[in-house]
């Protein structure tokens, strides 16, 4: 009983203990109140500040590059397209002390500068959650295609790293195995590399692009911009509209898709369909290259147009470049210059077509009129004019065929300065043709009031004025098509990415320069040029009658006309009976005599022959006078018109 009472006593709770419990309880509850106070402070008073700091970490804006429109030829052949590319990166943690060997391997495979890769693989440390680690994300190269990356991985998988470091432990071998697998990776960015599948084909017309890297919201964005050629003129249409994503991210998660709150997908650029024909372009470039190997000019250009519409079917310049690698453009000889539109020069004899055309059109001369050519030397006391070969009396037709300077002057003297100048302007000289390519020049035609006594004689034979190859080609095309100066066309149409036509460009007639009667006469005269009796024997074709004109312009060197440097040209069209193509071939400073008939005419012939086959043109002997032609042949010829 007593013991039990004692037990009860020890088991009872003293007031002191309860008091202490209350003390502790008060302390604990005060602690909770402090926490509540802290919560109010953090969540209410620091809310704005902390929220914006949190959003700084989570919110991201990505620009998404749009796929640039393609450039196609008139048949749908891809001339410029895009390839999806990635950024090649390396994880230094997997490379560590093998960085030199790795730099060598990567540089060897990608054919890039080894020291640049080596610099990037320099062991750098970053702090991740308070720990110093080797940088797991080092950028090595942008615009790496999938094929290149896969190839690099395969290359690294068999690269002999072991031999680089002698005396390896088993753990080193394991490390190397891991390195082979994980050292390089690609960053998934929406990026495209502009590619020109046909390499250098039509390089000057297409132009090239430049990619600018900008950092936007911590992400790399590449904006592609057309720098030259169609890429430049059609840049606005080709580039489309960039996309825009405003979203949130978290570590180890690229994006928190559910919190994407603004999302504008990029709109792909329009496709540009050119008037070029890749087949003809290839023919032209091949023959240009052959001609260049023969004549070794400093520069050259060839243009092939359809006279009826002004569509440029092929256009090539030398020297040329590879638009896939704009960095290889040779600045010393301006290999990216589209010489067909941005070279201007004194045309020489090819300009006589304008002189004779104006005389025929004005009716001051007829083809069969005789002109006395002074046996090659003419002087009026103030200035003189000479021919390479002395001629006596020539008909107008022969003046053109033999390219007599004196004859031409005498013919144009009857037209007069003012009327002649009007024809020159009407043919489009002295003003830009308006072709949709950048860098076109207008040439120079001085106004008549600035002409001196001698000027008419010089202009008549293609001196003291300057023209571009395209201008002289379009002038010849005007003669071929019955007297209409056409605006040269390079863009056929603009298409939506799905192929629907957005806008179609139509041939545009600038003005009628000549009467069709005078062009018929002129064509007849020009056919004589490319005959046994003319300066362009080498331009003759077996099946087609060629109309054309040679030019051999002496170039000004140190203020004097040189006897060594020439501009050899030939401009012509065929079939003369019903012209389908007009070709100009221009060699600047070819080796040797520099005659247009020697350097340019054979190239013209080669191109004309292959182009006529390619286009399936009707041979000249098919053409009969219109009233003799059977009706089905008329229909057939219309159907066959390109």
């Amino acid at each position, binding site marked *: 009983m007593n013991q039990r009472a004692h037990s*009860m006593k*020890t*088991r*009872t*709770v*003293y*007031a*002191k*203990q*309860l*008091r*202490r*419990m*209350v003390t*502790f*309880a008060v302390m*604990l*509850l005060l*602690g*909770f109140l*402090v*926490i*509540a106070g*802290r*919560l*109010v402070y*953090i*969540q*209410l008073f*620091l*809310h704005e*500040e*902390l*929220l914006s*700091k*949190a*959003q700084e*970490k*989570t919110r991201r804006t990505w620009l998404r590059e749009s796929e640039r429109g393609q450039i196609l030829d008139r048949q749908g052949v891809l001339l410029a397209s895009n390839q999806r590319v990635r950024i090649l990166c390396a994880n230094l943690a997997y490379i560590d002390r093998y960085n030199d060997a790795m730099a060598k391997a990567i540089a060897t495979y990608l054919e890039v500068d080894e020291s640049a890769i080596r610099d990037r693989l320099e062991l750098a440390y970053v*702090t991740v*959650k*308070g720990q110093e680690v080797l940088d797991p994300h080092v950028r090595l190269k942008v615009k790496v295609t999938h094929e290149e990356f896969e190839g690099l991985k395969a290359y690294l998988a068999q690269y002999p790293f072991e031999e680089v470091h002698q005396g390896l432990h088993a753990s080193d071998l394991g490390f190397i195995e891991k390195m082979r697998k994980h050292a390089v990776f690609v960053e998934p960015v929406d990026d495209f590399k502009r590619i020109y599948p046909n390499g250098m084909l039509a390089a000057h017309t297409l132009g090239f692009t430049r990619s600018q890297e900008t950092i936007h919201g911590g992400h790399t964005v590449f904006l592609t911009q057309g720098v030259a050629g169609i890429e430049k003129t059609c840049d606005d249409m080709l580039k489309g509209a960039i996309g825009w994503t405003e979203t*949130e991210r*978290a*570590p*180890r*998660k690229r994006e*928190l898709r559910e*919190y994407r709150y603004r999302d504008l997908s990029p709109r792909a650029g329009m496709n540009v369909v050119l008037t070029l024909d890749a087949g003809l372009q290839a023919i032209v470039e091949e023959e240009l290259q052959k001609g260049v190997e023969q004549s070794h000019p400093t520069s050259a250009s060839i243009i092939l147009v359809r006279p009826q519409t002004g569509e440029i079917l092929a256009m090539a310049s030398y020297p040329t470049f590879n638009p896939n690698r704009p960095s290889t453009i040779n600045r010393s000889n301006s290999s990216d210059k589209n010489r067909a539109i941005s070279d201007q020069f004194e045309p020489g004899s090819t300009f006589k077509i304008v002189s004779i055309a104006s005389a025929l059109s004005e009716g001051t001369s007829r083809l069969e009129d005789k002109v006395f050519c002074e046996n090659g030397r003419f002087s009026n006391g103030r200035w003189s004019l000479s021919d390479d070969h002395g001629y006596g009396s020539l008909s107008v037709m022969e003046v053109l065929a033999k390219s007599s300077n004196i004859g031409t002057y005498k013919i144009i003297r009857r037209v007069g300065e003012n009327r002649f100048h009007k024809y020159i302007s009407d043919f489009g000289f002295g003003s830009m043709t308006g072709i949709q390519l950048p860098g076109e020049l207008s040439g120079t035609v001085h106004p008549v009031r600035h002409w001196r006594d001698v000027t008419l004689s010089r202009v008549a034979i293609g001196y003291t004025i300057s023209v571009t190859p395209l201008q002289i080609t379009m002038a010849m095309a005007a003669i071929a098509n019955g007297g209409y100066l056409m605006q040269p066309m390079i863009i056929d149409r603009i298409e939506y990415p799905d192929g629907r036509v957005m806008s179609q460009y139509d041939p545009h007639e600038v003005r009628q320069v000549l009467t069709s009667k005078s062009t018929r006469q002129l064509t007849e005269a020009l056919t004589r040029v490319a005959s046994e009796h003319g300066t362009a024997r080498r331009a003759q074709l077996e099946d087609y009658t060629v109309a054309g004109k040679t030019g051999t312009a002496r170039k000004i060197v140190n203020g004097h006309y040189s006897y060594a440097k020439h501009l050899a040209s030939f401009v012509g069209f065929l079939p003369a009976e019903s012209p389908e193509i007009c070709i100009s071939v221009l060699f600047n400073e070819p080796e040797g005599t520099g005659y247009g008939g020697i350097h340019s005419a054979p190239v013209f012939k080669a191109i004309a022959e292959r182009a006529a086959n390619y286009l399936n043109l009707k041979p000249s002997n098919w053409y009969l006078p219109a009233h003799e032609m059977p009706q089905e042949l008329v229909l057939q010829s219309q159907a066959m018109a390109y």
Partner: protein
Amino acid sequence: MGDLESKGIGIRQATYLLISCVTLLLTFGSVMLYSASMHQEGSFLLIKHLVYASMGLGGAVILAWKDYQWLRKHAVALFMVAVVLLGFIFVFGEVRNNARRWFVFGDVISFQPSEFAKLALVIFLAYYGEKNAEKMGSWGHGLLLPLIPVGLLLGLIFSEPDRGTTVLLAALTGVLLLLSGSRWSGFVILFLIGVAGLAYIFSTQATPGERFMAWLDPEKHKEDHAYQIWQSLLAFGSGGLEGMGLGSGRIKINFLPEQQTDFIFAVIGEEMGLLISIGVVIVFMIFVLTGLFIAWNARDRFGFLMAAGVTFLIGLQALINMAVVTNTLPNKGLSLPFISYGGSNLLFMMAGVGVLVSVANHSLKTYGMKVPEQVESNELFQP
């Protein structure tokens, strides 16, 4: 507390209130646990958590139903089991995050003996405090003698290392010994020794003062020492008054480490806002009040000490956890009871609640026994 009684709140109501608090925390916690871990684990952690919760609930029901008197008989044995298990940790334990705290069975089942040790310590100290009730005033029985086994236990936990639990249990031991009747003076000395020890530990670290400075200015150190705490503050701050909405937290997604365990309160703050986060604080306060009310009305000194011990254990742990995540205290690894993910912790917290309810069920009031003279309420506030 007398006031509460006089206002008619009986022990039954207090028990219901306590159970409601725990239920509320447990269910709300499960929801938040899923939200905190769904981005990384899906429902995996939630399911594990619910399994442990069910086991804990079963254990709690059994403990609540049984008279807690049996625990007195086994107090020493339980304590010894805890010490032995903690000792085994050094042999069989699994190292995670640079600490050896777990036994791991298979792939999914793991057991943390220090959680068991928490409850064992409370029971042991309650037993000791009751047994030596008359002698607690002396230096020997009141302070030095119990420090031997407790010191052994804390030493083992400290060496795991698990500083958070060590500090928590040291504080709890102080509270329980003082509730048992020990002198204040001894604890003042111990407290000073403890502070000196912590200062020494700080000074031996590679960057002394860095962590302390990081605590004072987390934004400046947000890239290294204060990374976690800065993320936690960002989470609370983003939440603001209304929160970002359940499941819509951003910081919880890989920014904030341990977001499903120690830092789950930050997820609550971010997603549910200030009202709910303060609500959680209030629920814990009610839990503490009801737990201590049960202790007050305990049938005997063992029940009193045990109920108070369990209440302070849970309350203190919650307080320290919340203080850490709000950067009120420097970082310690302690979870938030009933809400944080952690199987062993949940299991033994629930067991503790079972013990509490058992004390309530077998209290003076429920059995209609008279209040002993010593506990006349008017004595309480005498000087």
